[in-house]
């Protein structure tokens, strides 16, 4: 099992962000996290990536408990934070070299890893341009390349296609599909069409809880369409 999440809980002050999330993930699966804003998707992903510590519950990556052995677990996870924060004054080449070396790779190993990840993320000629001058789509790809550097089997991507134009979105989706062939992926998204296009499984989160965990096809059949499922399953604050 790539990933095992059990009874995950996290509160910020009085607000309960994640309230007992549990699921597991295997190689070859691309899981789409669906849910309204503030449902707890990002917080859940942050706990899996070892950025936030859960109040309760357990995350196991390859059977390694993230709370017990955070660094060993983090060596096995690739993570793209929401909004893909980068260092704008660096070029992708410098930035990726930095991440690789900060992950403990040797100089030679880092060079090799950067070349491979840049190719996987299709960075092309942009690799020597300052990140600040790149388009949003390319910046997202740099973030993806950074998550791929150590060739992790588990990838956690928080809104990888958010804010991209249709061409850029298409390119990132192709990449995700390709990566999903021999890895396990979790992506969060607001695009239901994206879930249908790339995900093998959809987990709908609302109010910090998993309210559905099924294939997108099964969810759509049960409720008429994926959009109907989403609307029915989540609290729909916006409903008039």
């Amino acid at each position, binding site marked *: 099992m790539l990933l095992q999440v059990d009874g995950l809980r996290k509160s910020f002050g009085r607000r309960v962000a994640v309230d007992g999330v549990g699921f597991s993930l295997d190689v070859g699966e691309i899981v789409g996290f669906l849910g309204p804003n503030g449902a707890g998707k990002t917080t859940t992903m942050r706990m899996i990536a070892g950025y936030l510590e859960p109040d309760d519950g357990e995350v196991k990556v390859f059977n390694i408990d993230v709370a017990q052995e955070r660094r060993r677990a983090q060596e096995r996870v690739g993570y793209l934070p929401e909004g893909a*924060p980068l260092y704008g004054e660096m070029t992708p080449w410098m930035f990726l070299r930095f*991440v690789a070396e900060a992950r*403990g790779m040797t100089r030679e190993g880092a060079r090799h890893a950067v070349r491979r990840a840049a190719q996987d993320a299709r960075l092309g000629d942009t690799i020597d341009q300052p990140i600040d001058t790149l388009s949003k789509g390319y910046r997202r790809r740099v973030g993806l390349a950074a998550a791929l550097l150590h060739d992790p089997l588990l990838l956690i991507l928080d809104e990888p296609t958010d804010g991209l134009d249709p061409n850029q979105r298409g390119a990132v989706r192709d990449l995700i599909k390709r990566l999903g062939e021999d890895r396990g992926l979790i992506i969060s998204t607001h695009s239901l069409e994206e879930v249908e296009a790339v995900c093998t499984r959809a987990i709908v989160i609302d109010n910090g809880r998993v309210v559905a965990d099924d294939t997108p096809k099964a969810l759509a059949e049960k409720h008429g369409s994926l959009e109907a499922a989403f609307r029915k399953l989540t609290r729909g604050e916006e409903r008039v």
Partner: protein
Amino acid sequence: MNLKKQPGLKSMLAIYRRELLSYVTTPTAYVFVAVFLFAIGLFTFQVGGFFERRQAELTYSFFSFHPWIFMVFLPAVSMRLWAEEARSGAIELLLTLPAPTWALVLGKYLAAWTVAAVALVLTFPLWITVNVLSNWHADNAAIFTAYIGSLLMAGAYLAIGSAMSALTPAQIVAFVLAVLISFLLTALGLPLVSDFFSGFVGGGVAEAISRFSILYHFDAAQRGVVEFRSVFYFLSLIALCLGFTALAVDARRGG
């Protein structure tokens, strides 16, 4: 123990290099160093009366101003260390690296210290001037000791700045807090302040308080005397502040 095999060390060096790079690829480091050199020159020649003294020493015309210039200059160097990471969200990248927190804290801190060291080294024309004017009879051992003392003191101010930077995503808040704490910790050693304290807590206590000040411990160094308790004082202050920085950074994981 093979240091190269220590996993945190590689991460620390990578963080150090990146931080140093960001100082030199953005104008900040150049501006800071230029302003520092301008300020130190102004104080040395205008306030310290370097030429009027006609003495081959740098203690009173040069080194005695360091604490006061450092306490404003160095918080400006250190304010972005953690505040900027928190503001831009890049802290999420750093904290999901399989690296121990100390490696992140130390790497960033050493980069800031390097900027301070470069600024100090660039004051070498003054040292040459003193030597030329005195036909190379200046007490260069004393000057060297004072430089080392100044570097240690700079390290203490930067460590305070690093801790304050870890508390807030706003650089300006980090700056103001660091200047404030640096000022308090320095001014405790002023006769004016210890006289004030001795008025109502007695001379003994006032004396004890002044011994906790940066000024007190820099005093021997600027005169060229190596005092081990002062070296110990600066190193402990640095360790304390960096420990606090690490705690503040790790506290983010708690949410």
